[in-house]
């Protein structure tokens, strides 16, 4: 068996809407090893959620065109029927959504929701499922799981709900867990708890995790590799340290520099990226970042750069005028 759990090749997801076609994911290729945490970072609208849902085979079949290939543990996801996907969901791949309320049934006790999955997917009997559900709830750190088993989602806080969602996702021990902004909207202290939980579960169950976020801080210490997305494309990818310290793509740098830091002195002037991300429904021939890029040249406006290898293994970037090592004040 290959060591690669997930292989994504030239994946494109295009929505057909009344105002034209929207290439939400525009040619994305990457792979993921077993027991690895991959961070996907990008601003709102950069296509992170669409990418995740496409990998899950969750895109609706109407008005969406998906091309390319997603090999999940050797199974092709693109073009697979919903029935085929059903055999993969929960056991091969599971997803944690941003808003835990939308992925929990508000009128069903949380224990039952986990039971259900176990009984349907793994054919457990009622007793075994009940015990396993309790075990899972305890594993995700829900205090007094026995009594919470009978609680409804609305009776729980946001952090607790997200734990339940994680427990549900882990019910059938998937090999890949995709977490789409699992901590957005949670408090910092709760966010730290959830991220620690995901980390320890990953070790415990030796699964791979794709951690999607708009916050570079979330992936800085959790992911071994990072993909930076902009306007539906990968603009830079590589080992976490390479992305933070040796990035070559101006957008990655702008993203890093425009985020405020706890270590800054008060009234530090932040570097800003002028303008805002492009509208995907108007096609642009060149580099999607060109209208906002300080390094843009003529070429950038007419020809789209492709991913090329940097010096470090696995480090790739898409830019015509990449930053050089000397551009990094913080290079170590």
């Amino acid at each position, binding site marked *: 068996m290959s060591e690669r759990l997930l292989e994504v090749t030239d994946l494109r997801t295009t929505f057909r809407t009344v105002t034209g076609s929207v290439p939400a994911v525009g040619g994305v290729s990457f792979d993921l090893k077993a027991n690895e945490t991959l961070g996907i970072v990008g601003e709102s609208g950069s296509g992170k959620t669409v990418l995740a849902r496409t990998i899950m085979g969750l895109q609706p079949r109407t008005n969406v065109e998906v091309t390319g290939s997603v090999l999940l543990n050797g199974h092709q996801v693109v073009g697979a029927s919903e029935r085929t996907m059903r055999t993969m969901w929960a056991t091969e791949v599971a997803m944690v959504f941003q808003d835990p309320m939308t992925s929990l049934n508000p009128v069903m006790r949380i224990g039952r929701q986990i039971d259900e999955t176990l009984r349907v997917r793994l054919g457990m009997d009622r007793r075994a499922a009940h015990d396993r559900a309790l075990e899972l709830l305890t594993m995700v750190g829900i205090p007094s799981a026995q009594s919470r088993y009978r609680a409804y989602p609305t009776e729980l806080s*946001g*952090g607790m709900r997200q734990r339940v969602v994680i427990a549900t996702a882990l019910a059938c021990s998937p090999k890949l867990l995709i977490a789409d902004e699992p901590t957005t909207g949670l408090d*910092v202290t709760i966010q730290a708890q959830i991220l620690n939980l995901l980390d320890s579960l990953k070790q415990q169950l030796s699964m791979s995790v794709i951690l999607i976020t708009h916050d570079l*801080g979330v992936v800085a210490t959790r992911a071994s590799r990072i993909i930076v997305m902009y306007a539906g494309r990968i603009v830079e990818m590589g080992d976490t340290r390479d992305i933070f310290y040796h990035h070559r793509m101006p957008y990655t740098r702008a993203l890093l520099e425009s*985020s405020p830091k*706890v270590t*800054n002195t008060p009234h530090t002037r932040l570097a800003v990226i002028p303008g*805002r991300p492009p509208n995907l429904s108007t096609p642009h021939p060149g580099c999607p970042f060109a209208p906002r890029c300080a390094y843009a040249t003529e070429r950038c406006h007419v020809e789209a750069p492709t991913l090329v290898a940097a010096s470090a293994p696995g480090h790739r970037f898409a830019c015509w005028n990449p930053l050089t090592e000397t551009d990094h004040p913080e290079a170590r």
Partner: protein
Amino acid sequence: MSDERRPLLKVRDLTVTFGKGAHAVSAVAGVSFDIYEGETLGLVGESGCGKSTTGKALMKILTPSSGTVELDGVDITHQRGRALRHARTRMQMIFQDPISSLNPRRRVRGIVAEPLDAWKTVTGEQRDRLVDELLNQVGIDPEVYGDRYARQFSGGQCQRISIARALAMRPQFLICDEVVSALDVSVQAQILNLLEDLKAEYGLTLLFIAHDLAVVKNISDRVAVMYLGRIGEIGPSEVLYEAPAHPYTKFLLGAALEADPESATTGAVLEGEPPSPLDPPSGCRFRSRCPYATERCAIEEPVLTEVAPGHQVACHFPFIAQ
């Protein structure tokens, strides 16, 4: 240094209670602080700790159940009618949700001009000129966007328009309630810089409410940390971030994520969740999650005490740098 400065806003024992009887929630339970003229005070704390409620009570959008708010030496707590309307124009508030802050059925110019029209301070051509000037200042081209409807704008642009509207009456004091929380990092930086510029230009005093510690550090001269309706610690930003004296502040800072792979992740994580404000713990409100809690914490409520000039902490056992 703080002694020489004049407090623009004096808040004493501010309490806001929602509901009655057994369901009464003291969302803000006896909060006191000063905001000096020309400074930015950051207000941080977890969700539901009463930050927005404090801001709204200062603006008298909510009626405090007790306590006083003094603006420039004038008690505004009991003002009503026209006097209140007038006091409000000296203070302004910008809200978290940029989209719902603007009436979707009004045009940008109308929105920004609303306070001017309500007060009729300037009219006619002068008013139009002022509106365009305000829009220019926040980086919205009035020629291009002035006649669009608010619903046609992105979050960042809506926030700019809200800022222009808030500045129309030239307020002295501006409350920003999570104004960048809903925005992307790149847009967030634009708005933060804009606020700093306008603050200098208008000589504003700011209360900056946010849950993002990094954002607060970047913009505030002093920071107040709230927990369950109380202020746990207040002090100059650098002091508070360097050497937090309250256990809660320490945990909060420990949980803040640095965009740096080499930042320590080993910081102890605060366990559990904030208790329900319906039934706060006796004594110190942080007691139920505090690893340093003793019997005394359950009995005696800690009060804000000065541990260094301008640095106050409400804890029986604060960390004090030797």
